[in-house]
């Protein structure tokens, strides 16, 4: 479903941040993307979405990500941004939730039903008609996740979905992610969450893949994690 083939990327000339990276994620897989600050996780996500363009090939469902295919590709992907302030741009949570689905041509009734389902699933009914500028950071994050779920994309990309959440909402998000059947790629420093939600982990270090394998294996490798500025998840200690 998602494939990187010898991808290289640099923001500024001569400063490559991803070096010749290749990996494949199959349909239905849940993959955790971990690595120290500045390792390149967000960059990988942006390349997948076609927000950035590098050398090499990025493929979604066998289609190469390039200018002409962006519309088709983006209809398949839902992206939860690292910063929810930039995700929620409509006045209210509800208006934000219907924005995507309506743009993709769904009818108002279908969209309204979806919105209510998603809100009920996340216990967020109370947020529906709240103003985005008057809710807390964590509530906004929950709203952003709801916004993406309402689009029912084929694959979901999440950049730090649990940062800013209180333990209750964090647990709720974890449970929700576990129930999603879609292909998932989740970048996070919250290794316990990764352990709970992902079967496979890709560890990025300085723009290269340092490890790629079953989540339990990588997340129990103390030396590997510590060499990458991480600690064993609490559950593994």
């Amino acid at each position, binding site marked *: 479903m998602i494939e990187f083939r010898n991808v290289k990327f640099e923001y500024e000339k001569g400063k490559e941040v991803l070096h010749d990276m290749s990996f494949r994620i199959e349909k239905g897989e849940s993959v955790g993307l971990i690595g120290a600050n500045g390792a390149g996780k967000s960059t990988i996500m942006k390349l997948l979405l076609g927000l950035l363009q590098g050398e090499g090939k990025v493929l979604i469902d066998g289609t190469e990500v390039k200018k002409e295919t962006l519309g088709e590709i983006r209809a398949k992907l839902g992206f939860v941004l690292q910063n929810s302030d930039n995700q929620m741009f409509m*006045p209210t949570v509800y*208006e934000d939730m219907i*924005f995507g689905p309506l743009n993709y041509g769904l009818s108002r009734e279908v969209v309204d039903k979806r919105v209510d389902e998603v809100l009920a699933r996340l216990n967020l009914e109370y947020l529906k008609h709240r*103003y985005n500028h008057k809710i807390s950071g964590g509530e906004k994050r929950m709203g952003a996740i709801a916004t993406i779920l309402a689009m029912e994309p084929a694959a979901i990309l999440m950049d730090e979905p649990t940062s800013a959440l209180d333990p209750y909402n964090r647990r709720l998000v974890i449970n929700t992610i576990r129930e999603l059947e879609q292909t998932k790629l989740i970048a996070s420093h919250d290794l316990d969450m990764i352990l709970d939600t992902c079967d496979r982990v890709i560890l990025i270090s300085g723009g290269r893949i340092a490890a790629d394998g079953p989540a339990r294996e990588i997340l129990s490798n103390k030396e590997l994690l510590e060499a990458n500025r991480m600690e064993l998840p609490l559950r593994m200690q």
Partner: protein
Amino acid sequence: MKKGIYRMNKMQKALAELSEMDELAARRSPVHTLHPAAKLLTTIVYILVTLSFDKYDLSGIVPMVLWPVLMFTISGVNVRTCFYKLRIVLPLVMAVGLFNPFFDKEIMVSIGGIGVSGGVISMITLMLKGVFCLMASFLLMATTKIDSLCAALRKLHVPAMLVSLLQLTYRYVGVMTEELAVMTEAYHLRAPGQKGIHISAWGSFLGQLLLRSMDRAQELFSSMMLRGYHEHFHYADIDRFRARDALFMAGCILFFVLLRYGNIAQLIGGLVVY
């Protein structure tokens, strides 16, 4: 402890006010439910008619206040809110005619034996023009959501590029104010007791503000693109243009024409003595 330290800083207040426009616009009233295009066109006609009055036609322009007053009453929007929100632009608009009395000293009318110069009359007329136009624009914004307004503009065949620009500008002004709020707060936390921002920090402050706003605007735009935004306004729920919208427009415009050419003030009985 300094007084008011827990209150929102100025920027945060400005931001809150800006977002409150969305809340005002989301309310319900007979004016709110009118078709956005009807309101937009009527407002434009109102502004044009108001501006078309002769600069000495004080008695003609005064009755123009009737329309905004009527609209405030029906829509339930508070007049005080209007003047409060416009407090920054209002003086600028008022200042336009401020010098007229110095240039134009010829006595035009006398009220109770005191001569009033043409300059004073034209100054007041200009001020009223400005204030009325601002009130009308405010009413439009306070009773119509920006997205519905944009949808209406598209229906009126205004190019998509321009409409997107308007819509994005509206969003980006919010983003910039937000960044400014965060930055001033961060600054004052590290420069306690200082009023304003020290001149030595202005350069980097402005530069940072611009960069940060641009970064955020970029991400925001990406976020819209990622959710299928193509300068289309599917999401704005705008109803069909109904009979009552046409009636509203026709009624208002007739009213304006009457005010403009019927010279109601003179009909009522000459408030001003020539």
